[in-house]
């Protein structure tokens, strides 16, 4: 088994053994397959048909669909955890998606890129053009990331949605992760909101 992407490894560590898990935007199923080692009963939603085929061939139960339109069909509180990795910034209605995730799962594990990362800020400040970084490597007119935010912005949204942050981790440039104190994200100009390339959060409904 190939090594998991750092944010997926951080999410995997948040999932308890034997849990029922829904991975929204599960890609080719790498995380779901990894979670099988924890005897997790995993399900996926994935928008790309090629990825769904890859999942099916791995024996994973994955439904081709769109987080923006399909979460409404899932009953409340049937999953121990719902996962959304590097996807919320590409949804049409991040607020509605997060509300659904908190409804469907008892815990929600989310990873997202940080638009407040210092390299992004510096790039815009000095170059005067939309930043392109390793994790956000798209021209502005071709990016699927239509709702980018900073970690501080995201923390604000979790409050709006009535969620509590159970755990938070900073994703560093070098692929390492570090636990962060969510309180350190209330001020947007310093701390992990400046120094982390992305974040991983475990949420629950307050």
């Amino acid at each position, binding site marked *: 088994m190939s090594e998991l992407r750092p944010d997926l490894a951080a999410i995997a560590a948040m999932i308890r053994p034997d849990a029922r898990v829904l991975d929204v935007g599960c890609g080719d199923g790498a995380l779901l397959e990894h979670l099988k080692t924890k005897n997790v009963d995993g399900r996926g939603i994935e928008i790309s048909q090629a990825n769904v085929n890859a999942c099916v061939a791995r*024996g994973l139960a*994955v439904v*081709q*669909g769109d987080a923006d339109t399909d979460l409404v*069909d899932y009953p409340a509180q049937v999953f121990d955890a719902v996962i959304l990795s590097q996807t919320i910034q590409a949804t049409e209605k991040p607020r509605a998606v997060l509300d659904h995730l908190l409804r469907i799962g008892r815990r929600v594990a989310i990873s997202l890129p940080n638009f407040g990362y210092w390299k992004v800020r510096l790039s815009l400040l000095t170059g005067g053009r939309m930043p392109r970084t390793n994790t956000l490597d798209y021209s502005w007119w071709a990016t699927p990331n239509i709702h980018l935010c900073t970690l501080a912005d995201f923390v604000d949204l979790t409050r709006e949605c009535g969620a509590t942050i159970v755990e938070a981790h900073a994703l560093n440039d070098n692929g390492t992760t570090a636990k962060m104190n969510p309180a350190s994200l209330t001020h947007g100009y310093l701390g992990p909101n400046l120094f982390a390339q992305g974040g991983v959060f475990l949420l629950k409904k307050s």
Partner: protein
Amino acid sequence: MTEAPRFLRPVTTPSADVGMAVTFEAPLPLDCGRELAPFTVAYITYGTLNADKSNAILICHALTGDQFVASDHPLTGKPGWWITMVGPGKPIDTDRFFVICSNVIGSCMGSTGPAEIDPSDGNPWGLNFPVVTIPDMVRAQKRLVEHLGIDKLLAVLGGSMGGMQELQWAASYPDCVRAVVPIACAARHSAQNIAFHEVGRQAIMADPDWQGGEYLLHNTKPSKGLAVARMAAHITYVSELALQRKFGRALQNRDAKSFQFTPDFQIESYLHHQGASFVDRFDANSYLYITRAMDYFDLAEEHGGQLADVFRLNSASFCIVAFTSDWLFPPVENKRIAHALNAVAAQVSFVEIKSDKGHDAFLLDEPEMFATVRGFLNHAAQDLS
């Protein structure tokens, strides 16, 4: 119970594999309250059943399909209807799996149906044949599978009405099937689909040669009515885009409009051909009976309309396949099944394949469908001996 190679009507292809048929003496109880006894199921098998009988796959055919899934058709000589899917090295690999395909009861390719002889009076059944349902068809298939000594099927596969039978298998015999692959189908027949079927049935019954359903006694054949039924149905099997691309407004063998009612347009001539070739291989009363069976299909009906309840505690894994341009069984209907299965925590995958070929895509060369089925079956069969 008797078993013999058997075929009821003249075989035009001398080399054709006409398959087998088994006649069961013990009655088949039907949803209408009547029973069929004796009854015959005609079928074909491919590949070899392994020692622990765990590699059997049942293929369920569509409305006008038959058991000749990977064999030349004995009446038309045409290749099997799913030759792209079933065979050595194909997604449903007959080198690896024991593949069974049987003719549904009510049909006309060797299984008991309205064109067969009613043992009570020695005449063809005609409209005295009981109205059969999808669950009845599946009950008959279960008898065949038991007859072949198989307790649990590795998989059931099929498209359209075949998919309905698969869902019924999962509902009626949840412990007898490990993997279910419904393609281009629904858990119930929609009002629009019933409407199209009724047009077809009325066309058949309006043909004076139908003779109140007793055309076999009068040596006539409601070919015109049956052809019209097929023409109307065929439109629903293809997408508007495919028709437009294939035919557009092109004229057939002429440079200008004729100002008559002979077929001017290629699409007209194409539909005429579809109708005319169909009547040579299909029985009109069978068409009435099988369309009725599809109309009556509503899997959730017995569960107070709750589709999810049908699949509670189902241990099979499901892979549902839909095609974007299928307007007969649109993706949303296929997806409803996936959501119902999800709601009861069943193992379900759903794939929506981009195709502009309409409902018939499941019979055509669709590489993504082949990849899906191959991958899914490979995984389902990974622990086979």
